[in-house]
């Protein structure tokens, strides 16, 4: 009887530093935010007034929609560029080690730097405009534009390598035998990409898409530097309303909405990977 108890204590002692820290500085404060967003001085019952304010005030409602757009659009760009990039990276070619290290650099570049790159290249008077002017083309406005193109490009710059890293991992795991069999049966590179690599890398693509989506939903620095004055995404409203005006209950409601979205995606993501792991092991047993 004492031995299992001792083992359990050892396990708890080992888990305590990491899990305990995250409970104190992340879990409990986040739970407090959720509680504070629905509590009021007058009633014991949860009050949803701040949520109603976010959903009915046009500025915030448009902000919420803009946040969703800034999450969705970079995800699509990351898939469209990152997945073919991954398919290239897993092939064999001269300089593989070099490119394999090079493409990952944006992963560790701060997003403010990504925003700065967009400013010097694509803002009016930026280098791309000067090049285009040489051949007589005038480029559309992409910085502080209402569609947030500059924001989408800066986020995509960081997210394409992230997508490629995860998808290349899935593609590298595909057995070389499958490729050989397909080629023997007359499949070209494109057929192999569409019929073999894409379907087998789908769990990786989905996982990376969910992570890119949630990053875009809560991003603050890039939209603040490159976004239009209207609409502002919820993250920027959170900063203004909280740190500039002290309107914390409203900020907590917005924070809760974004956290619920993040946690829902996290759980969906986990359920998804669990199912694919199951089907993979099932396939191995069969």
């Amino acid at each position, binding site marked *: 009887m004492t031995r299992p108890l001792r083992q359990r204590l050892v396990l708890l002692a080992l888990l305590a530093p990491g899990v305990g820290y995250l409970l104190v500085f992340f879990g409990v404060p*986040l739970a407090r935010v959720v509680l504070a967003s629905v509590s009021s001085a007058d009633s014991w019952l949860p009050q949803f007034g701040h949520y109603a304010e976010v959903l009915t005030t046009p500025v915030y409602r448009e902000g919420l929609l803009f946040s969703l757009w800034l999450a969705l659009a970079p995800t699509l760009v990351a898939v469209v560029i990152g997945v073919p990039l991954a398919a290239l990276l897993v092939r064999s070619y001269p300089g593989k080690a070099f490119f394999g290290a090079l493409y990952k650099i944006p992963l560790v570049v701060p997003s403010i730097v990504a925003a700065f790159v967009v400013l010097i290249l694509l803002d009016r008077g930026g280098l791309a405009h000067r090049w285009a002017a040489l051949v007589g083309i005038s480029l559309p406005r992409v910085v502080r534009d209402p569609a947030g193109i500059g924001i989408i490009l800066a986020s995509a710059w960081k997210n394409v390598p*992230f997508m490629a890293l995860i998808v290349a991992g899935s593609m590298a795991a595909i057995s070389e035998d499958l490729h050989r069999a397909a080629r023997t049966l007359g499949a070209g590179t494109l057929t192999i990409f569409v019929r073999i690599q894409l379907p087998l890398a789908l769990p990786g693509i989905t996982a990376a898409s969910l992570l890119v989506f949630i990053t875009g939903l809560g991003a603050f620095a890039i939209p603040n530097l490159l976004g239009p004055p209207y609409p502002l995404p919820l993250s920027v409203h959170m900063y203004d309303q909280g740190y500039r005006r002290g309107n914390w209950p409203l900020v907590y409601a917005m924070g809760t909405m974004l956290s619920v979205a993040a946690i829902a995606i996290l759980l969906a993501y986990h359920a998804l990977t669990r199912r694919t792991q199951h089907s993979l092991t099932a396939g191995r047993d069969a």
Partner: protein
Amino acid sequence: MNRRAGHIIAALLSLYALIALVIPLVVAMLWSLVNPQDGWFAPDLVPPSYSTSFWSDVFATPGIPAALLRSVGIAIVVTALTVTLALPTAWALARIPFRAKRAVEVFILAPLIVPGIIVAVSLTEVFIRLGLFGSLLGVILVQTVGTLPLMIRILTASLEGFPVELVWAARTLGASPGAAMRRIVIPMTAPGVVAGGLLSFISSFEEFEKTFMIGAPAVETIATKLWSYLGGDIIIFPTASVVTFILLVPTVIIFAIAQALVRDEDLAAGMGKV
């Protein structure tokens, strides 16, 4: 795979690297070398003349060397704290089977997925009450919320592959627990710990949102300095370019070293891939 296909792939990847990395870096470098006497205005494709005066100006600006030192100092403390907290937890997750493991893993993943602004907002009121808001310690504590999951996940991934039989073999052959630790466990797990430590260092060094919300304006790091040059009413491109390089050069060098020590899949795990 035939040679022609290989060359086409290398050419496509070079094109990608040119657009995504080389052009932005060259343009930023040109901006940092603009001569303040002449400026660099449209339609000029390169600056009319060059000088290093913005570089010397930036290093002579009183706030910058201090911000750089502070960034490095914070990153060292955050990394040390992160490694200390992560090692035992990662060991338990990698080596001990227990029932709630899946739940613990999801909980550890959560701070990587919940946006940084929410982590900062949720700590603000408590930190104000405890006097940690706008303090160096407050910044260290909030940054660790981001680096700890990264570290635990990278360490867990690398410890999972650790062949524990070697320890049993050493013990059977008469090695003391201390000797087994020193001669087997530490050398074999060191690359994972070093790679995780380097990645924690970079992730603290380049962290902006949480540092800005909890630390600003009292605690200035190199990243918040860059923000102040970009977010102001007049954007000073040459100054911002110099600060960008101060931020980028150490980050890229350390990342290159870390990449040599960590497998791609462990890196992906650290960044949130399950």
